[in-house]
């Protein structure tokens, strides 16, 4: 079976000499298509670092990351940008929308980069807005939306280009429990319906409850990898 994600001896350090901090230490990991995985661990355990390295947002100190069997360390800046654009959807903790663009334009942005024809773009934007329950709010700018609505737009933006992998860094951290649960249910449904791969970094028990696999990190090392039956 081909892995969507594979990391080999992945290390990431910050600082030098005596103040050298190993954020990630020799992480070996494979994630398959359709997984709904949560990476958990205390603050500073390396969850976000691992997610950023998987998404090609950061460069490893050593080791390799393979996405869809492609070594992203060997990609040029533009190739990596295109790969992220076409294969990965990102959802961040908060404030991750472009403030000067409306909800619709934020969602449309990636498709514009992909040069998707205008008719196709507006069709997909309509569908995704409906899926995340934001019909009628497409013209609003992020500042005119609540935290939950902003995060829904972020989810819609991450999914609209139909990526094979969605990386979500603490997506419910700034949401109340009701909104967070609704958002997670929506993502779970997308995972099940479209076999999309989701990888979360979180301490949120709601995500842990829904996850099919939980990878536990401690001091930059993977200390546990638990798979759950559906």
């Amino acid at each position, binding site marked *: 079976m081909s892995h969507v994600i594979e990391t080999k001896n992945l290390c990431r350090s910050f600082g030098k000499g005596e103040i050298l901090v190993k954020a990630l230490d020799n992480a070996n990991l494979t994630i398959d298509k359709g997984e709904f995985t949560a990476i958990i661990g205390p603050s500073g355990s390396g969850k976000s670092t691992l997610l*950023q390295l998987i*998404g090609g*947002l*950061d*460069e490893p100190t050593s080791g390799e990351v393979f996405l869809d069997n492609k070594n992203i360390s060997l990609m040029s*800046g*533009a190739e990596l*940008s*295109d790969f*992220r*654009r*076409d294969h990965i959807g*990102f959802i*961040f903790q908060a*404030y*991750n*929308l*472009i*403030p*000067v*663009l409306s909800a619709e*334009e934020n969602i*449309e*942005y*990636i498709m*514009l*980069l*992909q040069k998707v024809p205008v008719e196709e773009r507006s069709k997909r934007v309509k569908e995704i807005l409906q899926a995340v329950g934001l019909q009628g709010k497409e013209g609003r700018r992020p500042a005119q939306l609540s935290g939950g609505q902003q995060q829904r737009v972020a989810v819609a*933006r991450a999914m609209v280009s139909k990526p094979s992998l969605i990386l979500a860094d603490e997506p419910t951290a700034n949401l109340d429990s009701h909104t967070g649960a609704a958002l997670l249910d929506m993502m779970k449904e997308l995972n099940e319906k479209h076999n999309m791969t989701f990888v979360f970094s979180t301490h949120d028990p709601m995500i842990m409850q829904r996850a099919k696999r939980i990878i536990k990190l401690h001091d930059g090392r993977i200390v546990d990898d638990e798979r759950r039956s559906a």
Partner: protein
Amino acid sequence: MHLNFSLAQRNIFRNTRRTALTICLIASGLAALLFTDAFIRGMSVSMIKTSTETFLGDAQIHHQGFREANDIDVYLKKNLQLYKQLENIEQIKNYAPRVMAGAMLSSSENVTSVIVYGVDAQKESQVSQLKQAMIKGSYLADKKAEIIIGDDLADLLEVDLGDRLVITVSQAQGGDLSQELFRVSGIYHFADRFMNKGLAVINLMQGQKLLNINGVHEIALRFNHVQQASDFSLKLWADLNNTELETLSWRQLVPQLSSMLDMSQYSTLIVSIIMSVLVALGLINSMFMSIYERHYEFGILLAVGTRPRQLFWLILLEGFYIGLLSVVAGVLFGGLISYWKSVTGIDYSGTEFSGISMSDPIYLIIDILEFVKISGFILMITVLSCVYPAFHAARLLPSIAMRKAL
């Protein structure tokens, strides 16, 4: 691409106050540059006009060696033949023959040294402003013993209209002293102190008789266009410069003015450089402030698949829009002030520039092509100033950018 334009337009108005201040800075710089350009253009024309129209002429013909030796014996003998030649040169509008010599001028009260000019009254009025400068009495009318002098000279010699003056000169061909009595027929005033105090003007024939010569020392020329005086490719310069004749344009006759005008071109360049540096630094500062504030956002844009090159162009586009707005504001502001001063002028009466006393206000001259060039230059500087901030933004690593958010 459309979204990039839209993003850039919206981004520049995210911090309206900062953008407005940046636009004000660039627009003020541009307006100052446009004003300086129009002012220097106006000043140059005014100085050339003051210098050539007062008495000098656009060019002068002398006998070879006259200017070096300042010897009254060196004069143009075949003047009638020369007049015919001048009348056949299409670029020459008018000419005025003159004789000249250093002389003692005495009144009943005082005595002083002057340069006496003998001029053809009618021809002189077509070349210099002697006739227009009369403030008392009348201009020369080819009458015997009439003399016109400047008001300062009249004060010095304590004379007025109708008073007697005696000119004593050393004659040509032997150097015998010659004296003749004149009566003040008119008093003139120029902005130039030397003209008012050091010059006395009599009729040409009387001057020739007084100096015992049958030719002229100088022929002042007025061209159809003053620019022709600087166009040395014209045939007339070759025709009027030979073993006997020396013809010089005002640029050669008043080299200090010519140098000053050449220098003034550099002053526009220097002002442009200073302004450009200020504009560039102001904009770089403003763009960096804007970029640092948006680090997190750039991280997001890069994370979702925006290529670094696209981010680079986005910042340049923002700079272009700021530049465009600044140029519009600067051209409006600078253009309006320059236009206003091109109509009302700036009064520099009595002020001396490079030995030229300004008599009239300086009227600014707007050169549209130059305005377009300067505006284009400032727009280019604005965009170029954004290259460094844009390069910085494009090189950001998404994870670092998202961590560095302010």
